């Protein structure tokens, strides 16, 4: 039996790896830190919420059609679990939808501004504006979805002749109860998050070193002018990088409500840890995100647990941990763990 605190640490680490990987990739292509990146993830969270809620509501509709009694409907709601196809559907949907949002941010905001000679500060502020836009949109959607599904449930209750016992909540909600793998007494997200991270590591390794587009991406990041001279359509490669990065954030976000309490502002809490993970790993090293995410996720969870148990500090202090890690890293190793040339360090140690 794995200790719950370790499960939490693994969950956060995987989440930060998936999110900081995208942040690093977009930074490497356009050199702009994207402050909207965490909000991309929250779009994924609301896609999962919508999917799960609509699945439960349609099960209730079917049950009413079949004439099940209130006790049976209560059991149906309580014992509803996600099927493997549900996990695949929310991941694919989130990847595509959020990927398109990221692509739109690159093509409609950053590229035109960059073409007009906007400075880095200007572009950074533009990403904050996009973040506000996404945040507002999620809030509007949350209100609309709550009103819509409450209306549907009211209609169903009238049709059935008794109140359907389903609470529709679009803020501070969790879908934890529905995340169970049948047969195994384990949460689906606990299997999915590490599998997604490991699978991604393997795919990324093959993509970046064995495929034409992957090599073109590395070339475009290193020297866009030379890549252009070689015939690479650098803009298209960057657009792909933004799509994939946002898509990965969408996948991470899709699994968030299965473990954590989610609300539209969660992205603003996560963004600090994601930046910390990217900086710790090295903003110019794709694989650095794996190290950074693991380190920040583990330390954030384990140190906070220690501080709560031994000093009685509450969870409000949690964001302090990634901020401190980020500050120490910027002071001691500004290029990040992945960006530092360890071979030189080894030589220096040997020489001394």
């Amino acid at each position, binding site marked *: 039996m794995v200790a719950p605190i370790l499960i939490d640490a693994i969950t956060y680490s995987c989440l930060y790896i998936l999110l900081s990987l995208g942040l690093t990739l977009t930074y490497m292509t356009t050199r702009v830190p994207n402050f909207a990146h965490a909000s991309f993830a929250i779009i994924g969270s609301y896609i999962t919420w919508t999917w799960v809620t609509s699945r439960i509501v349609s099960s209730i509709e079917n049950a009413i059609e079949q004439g099940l009694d209130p006790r049976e409907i209560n059991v149906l709601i309580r014992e509803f679990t996600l099927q493997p196809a549900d996990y695949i559907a929310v991941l694919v949907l989130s990847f595509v939808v959020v990927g398109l949002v990221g692509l739109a941010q690159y093509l409609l905001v950053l590229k035109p501004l960059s073409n007009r000679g906007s400075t880095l500060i200007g572009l950074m502020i533009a990403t904050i504006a996009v973040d506000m836009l996404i945040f507002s949109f999620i809030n509007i959607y949350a209100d609309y979805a709550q009103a819509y599904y409450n209306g549907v449930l009211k209609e169903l209750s009238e049709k059935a002749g008794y109140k359907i016992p389903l609470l529709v909540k679009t803020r501070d909600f969790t879908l934890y109860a529905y995340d169970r793998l049948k047969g195994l007494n384990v949460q689906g997200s606990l299997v999915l998050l590490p599998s997604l991270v490991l699978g991604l590591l393997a795919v990324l390794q093959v993509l970046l*070193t064995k495929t*034409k587009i992957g*090599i*073109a991406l*590395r*070339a475009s990041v*290193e*020297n866009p002018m*030379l*890549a*252009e*001279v*070689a*015939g*690479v359509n650098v803009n298209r490669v960057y657009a792909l990088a933004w799509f994939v990065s946002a898509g990965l954030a969408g996948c991470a976000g899709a699994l968030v409500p299965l473990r954590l309490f989610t609300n539209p502002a969660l992205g603003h809490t996560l963004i600090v840890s994601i930046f910390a993970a990217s900086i710790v790993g090295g903003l110019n090293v794709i694989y650095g995100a794996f190290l950074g995410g693991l380190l920040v996720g583990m330390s954030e969870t384990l140190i906070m647990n220690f501080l709560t148990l031994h000093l009685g500090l509450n969870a409000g202090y949690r964001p302090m941990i990634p901020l401190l890690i980020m500050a120490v890293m910027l002071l001691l190793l500004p290029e990040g763990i992945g960006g530092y040339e360890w071979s030189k360090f080894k030589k220096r140690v040997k020489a001394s």
Partner: protein
Amino acid sequence: MLEVSSVSAGYGKLQVLFDVSATFPSGKITVVVGPNGSGKSTLLKTIYGLTRIYKGKIEFEGQDITKIQPHQKVAKGIVYLPQTDNVFDNLTVNENLRIAGYTLPKEELEERVERALEIFPILRGYMKRKAKHLSGGEKQMLAIAMALIKKPKLIMLDEPTAALAPKVAYQIINVIERLKNELGLTIVLVEQNAKVALKIGDKAILMVGGRVLYEGSPERLLRDPEFGPTYLGLRGATER
């Protein structure tokens, strides 16, 4: 043949070239020499479309290429090798060669990589090594090999021997001469080391202050009692 007619160009509002006219004959090496800041590199960048052209015309094989974008020039057989950052340091030699032929079909790319490796057999031993771990000379060879994969008709080299040891620089100059003799390429070579470069050149252009001061035979330029000592650091005709 490449022909530059009355071209004035620069970077934004900073004009560097003033009414430059010159011809670069096919299948020959044209060496562009001159003191620092004379506009040699800017001339190459202008031909390749990397600067702002205020006026004038550039023609290649009778076609006006003044307003054509750099990546379209690759398709026309024109290749430019910058002085620095001309290889991808973090890619392996193999990946560098492959990215150079990004737009080619697989079979053709394999064939051209093989041809380039025949010219630079030393690179065969470094295929899995990252370019940043190559020596200066090896990097230049890789850069030229990458240029060859694009199957150029015209290749423009910006100081390919800069910062190289004399022995290595000599090897690179020999390679450039082989490119002309064996592949029949038209070569535009910008060089600081005028004495060495002019020896392999078929034609010489001397640039000073963004203007062409001399266009003609390299031997005459080397022997000229005024240009050599004043602009190229040569001690005059007696030395040759």
